[in-house]
């Protein structure tokens, strides 16, 4: 259980950061919704899991939060990317790309000329 969750949480954090980068400041519900939409509704997300992840990112200083008003005038807590969050996103994106590239070689290997 531990490993799966770790991977999941890691990717969730990346998704949150990326979402905030593209969308700008957004509340928890909006982030969850956006992640679901971006995944083409392939990911079924318990919206509740987004909050511990947000808390962790905030504790790490990657995002900051602030109460504000939503489009339909509801009070909501808005999260935005901090500077260190941007760096974090850059780094994690690279890591992720590298990891998927490596995995791709395993899954559909090409013979390297010797």
């Amino acid at each position, binding site marked *: 259980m531990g490993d799966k969750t770790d991977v999941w949480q890691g990717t969730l954090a990346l998704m949150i950061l990326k979402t905030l980068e593209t969308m700008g400041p957004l*509340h*928890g*519900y*909006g982030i969850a*919704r956006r992640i679901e939409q971006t995944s083409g509704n392939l990911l079924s997300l*318990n*919206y*509740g*899991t987004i*909050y*511990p992840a947000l*808390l*962790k990112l905030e*504790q*790490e*200083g990657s995002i900051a939060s602030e109460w504000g008003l*939503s489009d*339909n005038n*509801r*009070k*909501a*807590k808005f999260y935005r990317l901090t500077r260190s969050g941007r760096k974090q996103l850059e780094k994690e994106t690279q890591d992720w790309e590298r990891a998927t590239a490596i995995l791709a070689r395993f899954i559909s290997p090409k013979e390297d000329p010797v």
Partner: protein
Amino acid sequence: MKRLRVWIMRLAGMFSQGRRERELADEINSHLQLHIDDNLRSGMTPEQARRNAFLKLGGVELTKQAYREGNTIPFLENLQQDLRFAIRQLRKNPGFTGIAVFVLALGICASVAIFAFVDAALIKPLPYHDSGRLVGVYESVPMFPRSNLSYLDYLDWKKSNTVFSSLEMYNHTGFLLSTPTGAEPALGSRISAGFFRTLGVAPALGRDFHDDEDSLTAPRTVILSYATWQKRYGGKKDILGQTVTLNDLPNTIIGVMPPDFHFAPAEPTEFWTAFHATNSCDKRRSCHNLYGLARLKDGVSIQAALADTTLIAQQLEKQYPDSNRGQGAAVAALSEVIVGEIRPILLMLLGGSGLLLLIASINVASLLLVRSESRKREIAVRNALGASPARLFCQFVTEGLVLAAAGSVIGLVSAHWVMQLLAKLVPKEMMARMPYLQDLGLNARVLAFAGAITLLVVVLFSLIPTFRLSLSEMREGLTESSRGSAGMIWRRLGSKLVMVELATAVVLLVGAGLLGKSLYLLLQVDIGLQPDHLATLQVAAPPKYAKNEQAIALKQQIVGRIASLPGVIAVGTTSNIPVSSNGNTVWFRILGRPWNGEHNEAPQREVSHDYFTTIGARLLRGRYFTEADDATKPLVTIINQALAKQYFPNEDPIGKHISYLSDPPVPMEVVGVVEDIKEGPLDVPTPPVIYAPFNQSPDNDFGLVVRTSQDERFLIPTLAAVIHQIDPGIATSEAITLNDRINDSPSAYLHRSSAWLVGGFAALALLLGVVGLYGVIAYSVSRRTREIGVRMALGAQRSSVYMLIMKEAGWLAAIGIVAGLICSAAATIFMRKLLFGVQSWDVSTLIAVAAVLAVSALTASYLPARRAASINPVEALRAE
């Protein structure tokens, strides 16, 4: 970095929990609202919209819990909860808590205070450079395994040895210090030039001695101790270069030692002077007056050093048979020299305090056990509601932790006071000889020790109640009604704990009993004189009284003036006041018998003609000295019984002649034999002693012994005043009654203090053990009320109920006592060295201890037994 930030935020989260909780609730609310809004917009009914939003969130409480765990540190949060719960539980029971904390604090206080002494004396390294390679170097003779070196021997050893990187020496001695108001005695040490360099210390002010500053031609120089600099010179910086007059000779002050410097074997020392071999003793190879201090070369062991010095000693023996016959060598680690004597006592005290702590924690542990017994239902309910055994275990550990922490904090604070108090109780002269005790306190090592024992106590506390945390037990807990038979666990484990307590108490009582008996026997030792109503004073007159006639005249004047004081019955003088040391020995031979140059060694005392009658000695044969035994008459001597027995086993020594070793021999006629007078320590058998009349070998340095019909304490200040009237240049010291001298002598003091301390531990242990027994029996009676009621309803007599309870207690006590006696037989073997005149298996002590414990145990169980016997069967049966 990031991790650290997360942990800090989490830690901070623990303190702002209320606010965060509210904010989270708001956030979730707003989340749900936004979702519901969306759902409504997409055409759901309000009911569907709500339901879908909650479902999608995955449970509000679950989310909150996950958030909370992320926001704080779960373990710490649990701990915080447990702590709060434990403190609430303990506060609900102030009686239990108070007693438990008090008992624990007592045990911890005793252990920590004693450990602080152990640390200061045995663990803390000596304050010298690489102190493990420092050794004391001695000559060795049968009477004194570590005896002084003579100066000439020292020079030869220094020259010939191959094992020491340096060999230095010190001669702890008394100086006559000239002050504007007259002469004062001051203790000092004459040391060789490299002494401080060998220790690896340097003066804080000024300079150390130069290499050849201890040669005869060098000007006299002195280094002050820090305390002397402060006390006598007000700590003035311009002290260097000034002169101080010691024994009528000017010495230039060249330095001051640092405040924390001390050298126990030569303490107290006010003045460290560079050695000048000028007095008559320094020039004779047969006169031994100094000790060696050396640093071993790298890789050289003490055994190797001993072998090397022994070889040198043997060579010197061949070279100088007259003076060096039988003079061996001894080498010992400096730490052994300094604390060797006190080590077994301290270790025994540490053992005693450890046992006391054991009893104290067992006592509290059994209190906890009783509590856990009565909390059985609570635990079962909490388990049924989902608390895991691990969680319950944590709860118990926390409770133990709170108790132990409170106990150890109070224990530590009181230990701080207790160790200061104990240090103050040590007589000043004794403390001066143990300078390493001066920075006694709660240092890092002592705190670490306190932490370690607290941890042990916590482990013990948490183990005991969790013995019974198995699941089946818990289920039982729900069903078992509170009026069942006395809890089985309690009876099994609790009674065992009490037996351990009683056995431990027995060990401590036996130890205390043996030490007490040793002390009693030590103070009962026949010292061969009547010590009551005797005042003593040491007199040191300046060199102008050094000539024989001058010394005799001075002594006559002093004795005459003091004898005319009101209340004074008799006055005598001796070169060494009794019960001090067996030093100042001479070599002698018996004339008229074959003699092959062997060294018969005996302490020699020069005493005035009325000395023996003054102290109340007992004459066995012959006569005492008279005023007429002076230089104009043939030399005479009085010997003690030990000498008569050893050297004249089957003949009458009176009329025989002995002589000191000289060429040609100078005969002294034995005119009397006195019963042994204790010249040395109380616990050392009296060796053969030779007494010579003062008038035939006078000295300007002697001890005064005065018998008075009044309280001897009142006489003491007058004695010094009278002598200073005669000449303010005469120094007096050691003004003390003979009884105080005996009671404060190191052997008596060490025996007394260890007897008192262990006695104190034993009394507390007895109290705790007996209270523990009372607790077990009382609890057992309370749990058996119904059973006893049934018995009585069926016709049991009150007496048989008494028997029932007393038998239960009797068994516990009997097993405890027997186990304790067996353990103490083993434990006291380690004490043998500390005992005087009593065997470690002293039967009367063992019987007395068993009796004391049996009586206390019976008393403790009588109260609950009476309560059991007075149970009203009707009420007992009707009760729940």
